[in-house]
């Protein structure tokens, strides 16, 4: 039977994939997507924990909804930023953004 550990494992794997994406991708949008993966891993965590450990209330699910909302806001601001930068730099490649270093 599928239990809490399976969900947690899934979430962890998902989180890992997100982290991998953050490191391996160069495109800012792709990286944002990877981060979304990580956030979703967290959501799975919350919902699963709520279901298996604390079924009496819905705090975990609530939290997940908050996360989804905030992530949406974050992504919208992020995308807006990326677009506006693309207009100036003609690039969304993160390795091009290194005017400031050291």
């Amino acid at each position, binding site marked *: 039977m599928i239990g809490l550990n399976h969900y947690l494992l899934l979430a962890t794997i998902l989180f890992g994939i997100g982290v991998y994406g953050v490191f391996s991708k160069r495109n800012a949008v792709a990286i944002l997507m990877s981060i979304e993966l990580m956030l979703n891993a967290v959501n799975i965590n919350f919902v699963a924990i709520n279901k298996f450990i604390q079924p009496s209330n819905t705090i975990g699910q609530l939290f997940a909804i908050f996360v989804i909302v905030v992530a949406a806001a974050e992504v919208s601001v*992020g995308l807006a930023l990326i677009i506006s930068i693309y207009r100036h730099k003609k690039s969304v490649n993160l390795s091009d953004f290194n005017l400031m270093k050291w």
Partner: protein
Amino acid sequence: MNYGLLTTEILTAVLGLIVLIAGLLLPERGKKAVGFLAVLGLTVILANVILNFGHEAVFFNGVYQIDIYGNFFKVLFLCAALLVFFMASRYTEFFGQRKSEWFSFMIFATLGMMVMASAGDLITLYVGLELMTISFYILSAYLLNDGLSAEAGIKYLIMGALSSAVLLFGMSLIYAASGSTVFTEIYRTLSAAGNIQPVLVAGIVMMIAGLGFKISAVPFHMWTPDIYQGAPTPVTAYLAVASKAAGFAALVRILLVALPLSLFNWSLALAVLAALTIVIGNLIALAQKNVKRLLAYSSIAQAGYILVGLVAANSYGLKGVLFYAMLYVFSNVGAFAVTTMVEVETGSTELEAFNGLGQRAPMLAAVMTVCLLSLAGIPPLAGFAGKFYLFSGAIQAGYLWLAFVGLLMSMISVYYYLIVAKAMYIGISQKEGPILVPLTARLALWVCLAGTLFIGLYPGPLSRITEMAIGLFL
């Protein structure tokens, strides 16, 4: 539940919206009034907080807490915001049409911080934190045409989102271990359980990492120099003092209320982080040539000092955290205010831009020197009193080595602060003639100077207030 005590947050939200709408509605010529409106509004809110300073209340089963601790930070955020508004008066010209929205985003960021300071539950904390962070994404990139500002925005966005993910993952693990998100509940369940689960440890570590990002503790500090350097200078100032203070406000409350030392000893780990932060921040600052970037590294080091207080987690240490956060507002905003003036005048924040400032604008140079030295912890300026509390706490808690590291490095840090002073006083400037400092900015400078000197010379009052504020943890 006295909902009247939530006036502060409500008013701030309303003010933010009013400013946003006023910016849209007012004709081009009337937009000057927006800044005035923002300042007025914040002053009223500040007055409100101060008037209700001593009132305490718990909302929604501990999800939201109005207490002196929170009020202290609210005063801090509001003061910082006001000072930044004053000192930015000339700088805001760079924002052009989008000037009025700038004020509104700043106010929303302030609201986010207030929520963080008062949050008694993980969800509230997260929401407040994101409100602040998302506002700052926008604020950092506010000078879109400026490559540096845009780059700062995108870097902050990515790093911020990433750190949020880590923070959230940590929160989810704590939720897993305790089954609750309210701080007091978490403590109750965990202390009843007795033994420590690895899940909890992982949760604490990831949460410290997430909040450590906000306060730019090593090794989560990497974003700081770039964002500080690239963001518009007033934003940097606000980011440096207020966002950091908000991070500390949340971190202290979580660690002491939800996960106190009796439950799990995180103090040694934090001590190592604090030491690393102090050492690395100061060492890299030694090699900087850009004043904003230098101040960024300096602020990393400052975060390390404040962490020392949390490591100690005793009366002196915690008082030191609050004390230092407050004085940091005056000293750091003062330094950034001068940097702003110089940037407006010369268009640069490189060290050379400060050459000859002592001759051209003695007032600016004096404020800069005093503020920087306060950051370095030279008596009789505020920074010394703050460090005295912090390291007294550390030694009392048995972290003698940490006090050694901290005080030694703070003396070494004097080097790079003095490099700035040297440029100002014996550098030869390209241009002659005095620098125009608008009245509002002048006011901000005076306040910063007076605050830094007053807190340093007479720490008594502030120390009494901090004593009240930390009452809830001891």
